[in-house]
């Protein structure tokens, strides 16, 4: 079994990231590290992710390996590219990769204060939001699929199709409604990856970590 910790902006990202990973490797125990439950401070959004990274960046190894029998094989850190302008990492989109690369650099060097991304840490920046991966899996296909990674508020498509509801100006994403959408995105991973370069990158990097873990666990002949 693989044990994966997730530090994410919000709960809906848990569902998408979990389902994508589970579609590749079904036997995973997820530990949802962030967002937390505090009603004050910044439990949700990139500020919460940043605060967590700043606090734990210098002791990631202790955090990941210190609970015996529950060592994390992988820690996924998520921040959407929609916040990149706050970190001076906004780049023209398309291509989505430029902003994602710049933001990853900020997360690793400034937030985690590390020289390079550690091998068991996967920093992911769906561009511009993780909802794009879900919308990219819809049938009939979204009409602006070609630019889906660079669109703000792509989540409105889920409201327009009556898959989610908007309340007080905010799209509500309860697990009961959003998890099936995340499952669908994972089932249609190849379509999603074809239109979302950062989803493809996430899948590729996760598979690389998985291969290393499996190799380490293979008994020597």
């Amino acid at each position, binding site marked *: 079994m693989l044990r994966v910790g997730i530090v994410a902006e919000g709960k809906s990202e848990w569902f998408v990231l979990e389902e994508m990973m589970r579609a590749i490797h079904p036997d995973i125990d997820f530990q949802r*590290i962030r967002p937390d439950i505090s009603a004050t401070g910044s439990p949700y959004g990139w500020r919460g992710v940043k605060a967590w990274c700043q606090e734990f960046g210098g002791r990631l190894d*202790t*955090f990941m390996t210190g*609970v015996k*029998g*529950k060592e994390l094989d992988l820690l996924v850190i998520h921040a959407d590219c929609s916040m990149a302008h706050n970190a001076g990492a906004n780049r023209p989109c398309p291509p989505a990769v430029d902003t994602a690369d710049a933001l990853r650099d900020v997360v690793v060097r400034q937030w985690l204060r590390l020289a390079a991304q550690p091998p068991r840490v996967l920093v992911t920046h769906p561009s511009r939001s993780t909802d794009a991966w879900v919308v990219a899996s819809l049938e009939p296909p979204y009409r602006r699929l070609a630019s889906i990674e660079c669109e703000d508020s792509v989540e409105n498509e889920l409201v327009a199709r009556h898959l989610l509801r908007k309340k007080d100006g905010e799209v509500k994403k309860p697990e009961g409604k959003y998890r099936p959408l995340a499952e669908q995105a994972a089932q249609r991973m190849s379509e999603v990856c074809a239109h979302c370069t950062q989803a493809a990158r996430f899948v590729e990097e996760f598979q690389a970590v998985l291969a290393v873990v499996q190799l380490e666990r293979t008994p020597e002949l």
Partner: protein
Amino acid sequence: MLTRFTVKGFKSLLDTTVELGAVNVFIGANGSGKSNILEALGVMGAAAFGSVEPETLRYRGVRLGLPALYKTSFKGQEPHQAIELDAEAGAAVYRLELDNPIEEPLAKWRIISEKLTVGRTLPLVERQGRGGMIRVIQGQVIGGLSFNEQQSMASRMVDLLEVLRAQQQGEVRQETVEAQELLAALKGYALFAPVTPVLRGTAEDVARDPLGLGGSGLPTAIQSLLNEEERTLGPFDLDEVWEMIEWAQDVSAAQGSEVPLSPAVPTKPIILKFVDRFMDQERNTLSAYDASEGALYVLFMLALASHPKAPRIFAVDNFDQALHPRLAAALTRMVTSHLVREGKRQMLVTTHNPLVLDGLDLRDDRIRLFAVERGRNGATQINRIVLSEELLAEADKGMSLSRLWVMGRLGGVPRSI
């Protein structure tokens, strides 16, 4: 001391083993199965007493239920036919298999199999067949007893073991002593759940000596532990106790008529009387009815952990309820260090209070923390939490046990919130 406990087929415990220490704290989401492991031990305690039936279960704090509720039954699977329980204490192992038909259940559960083993020898005692004769064995048959299928042999084994012990010497004799102690400890086990109205003396309880399951009998228990000259409450320093209960400076048991209490309050003849340190001397006595409930829960735990007649193995469900988090941590530290120092009793508790974890010194192997979670099939999984020295050293730099738990790093948290 119970060192290992295995449960198969009881409620959400499909197949679960815990390796126990002197102090065992179980954390987990509501409904994860924390209480089930404590109740399973109560079922075994009832069997060790003689039979598994409503009366013996209730006396041990086990919620009464039909076989359909007791037997593990997950979607797509046949219900477990029998409940298997296996308790180890050092070299002694007591194994038990119980059954009761789901259709037309019996008042008493059937004992399907029962075995007591010590060391690596043949079973010391083993039930043979469904009911009928059981035989005392140790390489050879040395005696026998007859039982019906709803009666455990454990209750009478203690006497047989006494006979055996008299014939033994050295290591073998020590093993027999361990077997006797295991059965006695199981028989005395109870799952307590302190309840404020009972502690206040206004509600009924399942009475036990010295403390009822909900906290009845507390005044008498406290009175017997108090030593005013030495300023102690059993093994505890009274001044340290009053440091936790800041508003009080004295406690004793009193007749209901000796404390200021409305005659309309239906209370017990003997109740606790507190002296408030802040109030005017003429009006500074309070009964348990008016005292802060936190003080009652603190005194309950101290009495349970130290009273000479209290069970050798006991469990408390949500022992920290009604306690301020810092008080819960301080009480945890006090009770835990006493139990470890004394080395005679064993405690299993559940908590939802993160700060309780900060009162546990997990560097001591006798103090153990367990995360209780449901697996994907719904079966309860119980995992001991062991932290590296490096992580423990980070406790005062923001990575305390309480924080790691709330953050989700230890497990034992609700998954969707």
